[in-house]
């Protein structure tokens, strides 16, 4: 093999974490565009509608960014647990319990009467805690009984989603008082004081302050993963639990802690969605965000920068997809197809990624 060829191959391998996800995304989008053409919509119209919905106006841009925030938080939790080779597929349920906790605190926990920034901070903390505890159930089962965390987080997700459903169906829990038979099964709107403040006074740009919290957390996760003892411990637990135990690393508490944090990020995402965008808790509150967040975490391949990039990608993809359906008549299901293709391409490509260079 000649030296230039080897140099190129080395370069490719060194940056595989960048070009591979990029390639998968481009492949997914190319297939999506082919499908748009296939259903007989002009590509120009479809792309124009997509752009309009994703970033065409300040409002659209802010809505996409808000969506990306929730996805990014779930993604951050995912890569944190992934460092210890724990796969958290429970984002959906963690968002749901976060949403429940934030709603309960905002409406009935007396948060609205507190002073200063507390009215919106307290429900966020409650959501964080609830999500964290929900995540640690899976950690506890793993530590105590060796239960596979994929199965337990998936099952816990279903349970949480139905708890949420039960909460908004029952007046004794979070359902709004029934005034007549047409009263919808959803919570009351949370008080203004508990809304997360918007970044600008202009209500046409509904980007909320959670973006600052999320960026700060992204920085913290990056530091924890790369610069702290805890980060090294997680890696050791993931790579070789036996060696980690011999080296005196507390495996059980590392697993518990990291599953708590993964869940807490999901819970906080739930608070962001409730207090920053939706303001009312509905049965299908978390719908899809948990799985999208999981995909964001997968795409990121363990890097915080990757989480930010793919969260933005999916935030814009979803918003643009909705407008594309409304304006250009292209089913927004196309976004699901693109997502599925991206996941499968990446999963299949891991075969070449993980082969050791000779």
């Amino acid at each position, binding site marked *: 093999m000649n030296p230039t060829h080897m140099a190129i191959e080395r370069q490719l391998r060194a940056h595989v974490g960048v070009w591979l996800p990029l390639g998968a995304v481009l492949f997914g989008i190319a297939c999506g565009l082919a499908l748009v053409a296939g259903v007989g919509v002009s590509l120009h119209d479809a792309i124009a509608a997509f752009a309009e919905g994703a970033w065409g106006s300040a409002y659209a841009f802010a809505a996409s960014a808000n969506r990306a925030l929730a996805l990014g938080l779930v993604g951050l939790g995912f890569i944190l647990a992934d460092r210890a080779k724990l796969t958290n597929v429970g984002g959906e349920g963690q968002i749901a319990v976060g949403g429940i906790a934030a709603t309960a605190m905002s409406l009935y926990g007396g948060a609205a009467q507190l002073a200063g920034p507390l009215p919106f901070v307290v429900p966020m903390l409650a959501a964080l805690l609830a999500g964290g505890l929900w995540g640690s159930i899976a950690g506890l089962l793993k530590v105590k009984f060796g239960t596979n965390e994929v199965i337990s987080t998936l099952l816990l997700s279903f349970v949480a989603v139905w708890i949420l459903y039960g909460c908004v*169906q029952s007046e004794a829990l979070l359902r709004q008082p029934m005034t007549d038979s047409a009263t919808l099964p959803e919570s009351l709107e949370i008080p203004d004081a508990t809304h997360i403040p918007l970044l600008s006074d202009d209500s046409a740009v509904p980007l909320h302050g959670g973006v600052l919290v999320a960026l700060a957390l992204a920085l913290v996760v990056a530091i924890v993963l790369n610069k702290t003892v805890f980060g090294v411990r997680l890696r050791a637990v993931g790579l070789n639990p036996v060696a980690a135990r011999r080296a005196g690393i507390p495996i059980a508490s590392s697993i518990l802690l990291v599953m708590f944090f993964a869940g807490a990020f999901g819970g906080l995402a739930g608070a962001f969605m409730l207090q920053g965008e939706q303001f009312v808790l509905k049965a299908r509150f978390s719908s899809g965000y948990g799985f999208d967040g999981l995909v964001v975490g997968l795409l990121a391949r363990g890097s915080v920068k990757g989480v930010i990039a793919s969260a933005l990608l999916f935030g814009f993809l979803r918003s643009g997809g909705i407008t594309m359906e409304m304006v250009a008549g292209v089913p927004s299901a196309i976004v699901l197809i693109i997502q599925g293709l991206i996941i499968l391409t990446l*999963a299949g490509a891991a075969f070449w990624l993980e082969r050791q260079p000779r």
Partner: protein
Amino acid sequence: MDFTSAPMLALFIGSSLRLAMPMLLGSMGELVSERAGVLNLSVEGMMLTGAFAGAMGSLATGSATLGLVLALAAVLPVALLQAFLSITLRANQIVTGIGINILVLGGTTMAYRELLGHRSRVQIPGLDKWAPPGLGDIPVFGPAVFDQTWLLYAALAFVIAIALVMRYTAVGLAIHAAGAEPRALDKSGGSVTRVRYGAVVFTGMMSALGGAFLSLGDIHTFTEGMTNGAGYLALVAVIFGNWKVGRTVFACLFFGAATALQFQLPAMGIQIPTAILIMLPYVMALLAVSGLVGRQTPPPYLTHAYVR
């Protein structure tokens, strides 16, 4: 609970059986594949494929049986994709399963809108009903319990066949070996890859039948994402069933009964939050995988790719 009225009880048993069938078909396929060492989270997507293709085939040809054939054909590429990724490329089985489910949900939703968007409430020719001679004539219980689509009886026959094949035949032994001791299978001249491919394709076929049962046997229409978690419940049933045929069947029937109760209880004037009944199977499975109800022993090489 007032089950003293015979018609009520008959109705309940009949609908429990009907609601259990899609899960039962899917879980029997999944049990075989998990025994061979491959976990298919994609059962959900395979069922959805079957439900969609079955409905479209039945609508296009006017024959539900041809719809069933189309469902079996349409699931092949999906199953082969799962097999290729998880066996040949040794990709993470959980990730590929979730990917396939998202892809199929998007694909069927889009295809449905393109094909039928303008006439979405269309009725589809369903599978014929049949009752075992004699049993169908029993007053009250005959029509409500035994008069079912023939696929339900076929499913019960499949269960028995699978139990026998898994226990008494060389094929069953090879499947068990692929998930318990793949190296031994390889050394003795069998092919782990071939057995696992076969098992995944079988899962696809059974799941497609389960999905088609939903759209052709029960409701006679297709709705977007109509499996709505039934595939995940099929997986849960296998876990709860401790990877054994008998217990898995029991789990499916139980889940079916829990689902039937959601409709039955309000009709009987009993107010139990439906969320609790829907949640029940998942909670039970959670207890099962935590080892709180007996010891669970999954096949040792479940989700482990085999490298020669």
